[in-house]
C-alpha cells in the first residue's frame, strides 16, 4: 500500500517535471521561430499611387507593390467581351469578371503566377499571351485569360487582385 502510493507520487513528479520542461522549452523556442516571420517594417503596408492617364487601350504597365509586380491593363472592347462571356463551368477557379474589376476597362492584377511564383508573360506587345489571350507563364506553362483567370496548366488559382481604389479617373492607389 505504501509502495503503491509512493509509485503514484513518482509518476506524478515525473509527469509534472516533463510537462514543465516541455512547456519551458516551447516557450524558449517560440521567440526564435517568430523572429523568422516578416519584421514590422516589412509588414507595414506599402501603398503605391499610379498615374494611368498615359495608358492607351490595349496597353499594360507593370508597377512594383510590396516587392511584387502588379499588372495594370486597359482592356479593349473585345477583351472585355471575351472575359464576360466565359462559361463558369469552363473555369478551374470560377469567378465572374465583374467580381475581378472595379471598372470594366481597367484590370489590376498581382503579376505572380499562382503555381510557383514566376512573373507571367503578356505585358509586352511582343510577349506570348497564351492560348486565352491574357498571360502565359513560361516556367511551367500556365495560361491565363483576359480577366487573369487560370484556364490551362498547373496553376491552381486565378491571378490575385490586389486591394486598390481609384483616387480619380486617372490615378489608382494600390494597397
Amino acid at each position: 500500500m505504501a509502495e503503491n502510493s509512493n509509485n503514484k507520487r513518482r509518476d506524478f513528479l515525473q509527469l509534472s517535471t516533463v510537462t514543465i520542461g516541455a512547456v519551458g522549452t516551447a516557450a524558449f523556442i517560440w521567440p526564435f521561430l517568430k523572429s523568422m516571420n516578416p519584421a514590422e517594417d516589412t509588414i507595414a503596408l506599402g501603398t503605391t499611387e499610379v498615374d494611368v492617364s498615359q495608358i492607351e487601350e490595349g496597353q499594360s504597365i507593370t508597377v512594383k507593390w510590396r516587392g511584387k509586380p502588379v499588372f495594370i491593363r486597359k482592356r479593349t472592347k473585345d477583351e472585355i467581351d471575351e472575359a464576360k462571356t466565359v462559361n463558369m463551368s469552363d473555369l478551374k477557379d470560377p469567378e465572374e469578371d465583374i467580381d475581378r474589376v472595379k471598372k470594366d476597362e481597367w484590370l489590376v492584377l498581382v503579376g505572380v503566377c499562382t503555381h510557383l511564383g514566376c512573373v507571367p508573360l503578356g505585358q509586352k506587345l511582343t510577349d506570348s499571351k497564351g492560348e486565352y489571350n491574357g498571360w502565359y507563364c513560361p516556367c511551367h506553362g500556365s495560361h491565363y485569360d483576359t480577366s487573369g483567370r487560370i484556364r490551362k496548366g498547373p496553376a491552381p488559382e486565378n491571378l490575385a487582385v490586389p486591394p486598390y481604389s481609384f483616387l480619380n479617373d486617372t490615378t489608382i492607389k494600390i494597397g
Partner: protein
Amino acid sequence: MSGNSEPRKYKNPVLNWIEFRLPIISYFEKEYGDYPMPKNCNYFWSFGALATITLVTMIVSGIFLAMNYTPHTEMAFDSVERIMRDVNYGWLLRYIHSNGAAFFFIIVYIHIVRGMYYGSYKYPRELNWILGVFIYLLMMATSFLGYTLPWGQMSYWGATVITNLFSAIPFIGEGLKTWLLGDYTVGNATLNRFFALHYVLPFVIFGIVGLHVAAVHVHGSNNPAGIDIRSKNDTVNFFPYMLIKDTIAVCVFGVLISAVIFFGPNLMAEVDNYIPADPLVTPAHIVPNWYLAPFYAILRAVPDKLGGVALMFGAIAILFVLPWLDTSKVRSCNFRPMYKWFMMLFFVNFFVLGYVGMLPAEGLYLLIARVGLVYYFGFFLIITPFIGWIEKPKTLPASISDVYLGGGKDSPLTASQKEIY
C-alpha cells in the same frame, strides 16, 4: 607514487600522455589503421573517402569566400563579381567552390549507386543508409541555399520557385512560405538567412558524416560479393592498403576537377546567373542545377501543384525505406540476374529524368518525364519487393577469399554453403 606511472603503450611519451587522458590515439589506430577492409573491394569503395575530402574542400573554400561576400540584395551580386575580379585568387576560390559542389554530387551519386548495386543498405547497415540519405538531403538543401547567394537571375527565380513549393501544402502552406522567406517575396531577409544557413549546414553534414563512418565501421564495409567477412584471410588492413588505393583515387579526381576548374569553369553554370536578380522579370526558362534536375522533372511531370510537390518530396523520402522494400536476402546485384537489369535501368532512368528536367516541360519531354516518374516509383514500390520474391539468385561464394578461387560461379551449392545461406 607507484600509482602515478602511466602505461607505456607507445614509444612516444607524448602519445602515451595523451592516450592515458583521452584514448584517441588507439581509436584512430583501430578505425583507420588496423580497420579490416574486405580485400575484394574495388574503386567504387573509394568514393566515401573522396566525398569526405570534397566536403572539407567545400567548407574551407566557402569560409574564405565568405570573408569577401556581402549578403545584401543591393551588394551581393557586386561582391561576387569583386571576388572574381579584384580579390587575390578570388576567381580560383569561387570556381573551386562552384565546381566542387557539382563534383560533390557526382561523387555522392556514384557512392549511392555503389550502395544500391551492391546492396550495402541491407541488414545490418540500414541505419547507415538512412544517415546517408539524410546527408544527401542536407546536401541538396545546402546547395540550393548556396545557389541563391550570387543573387543572379537564376538565384532569385530558383529561390522563388523552390520556396513556393511550400505554399502548395494545404492550410499552412502560405504562412510557412512567408515564415521561410521572412518577407512576402524573396527579399533581403531571405538572402540573409539563406547565407546564415548555408554557412552552418555543412558543419551539420560533417557531424552526420562522422556518424555515417562510425556506423559503417561497426559491422565493416560491404564488398562487391555482398557477403560477410568470415576470417582474417578475407581482409586487408586499411593502412596502408586502402589508404594507398584511396590516394590514387584522390589523385585521379584531382586531375579531373582541376581540368574543369581551370579549362571549363562555367561548363556546369547557367549563363542567366550572370544577370543581376530582377524581381519583375522571370527568365524565359528556369533551369535547376543539373544535380537537382531529376526531382525537378518529377515536380513538373504532374499536372497538379500539390501532387507534383508531394511526389517530388516522396521521391526523396522513399529512399529512406529502401532497406525494407527489398525482400531479397542477397546483397550484391552481381548475384541477382534479374534485379541487376532493373537496377541498371533505374540508373539510366534517373539520368534521363535529370536530362528532361533541364528542358522545357512540354510535348515529348513531358511524356518522357512522366514515363520516367512511373518507373522511378514503380522500381521502388513494385519491382524491388516483387523481384526479391520470384528471383533465383546465383550461388554465392563461400567466402571473400573463395571469390579468388573461382567460387560464386554457377557451381551447385556445397553442403557447407547451404548451411550458411
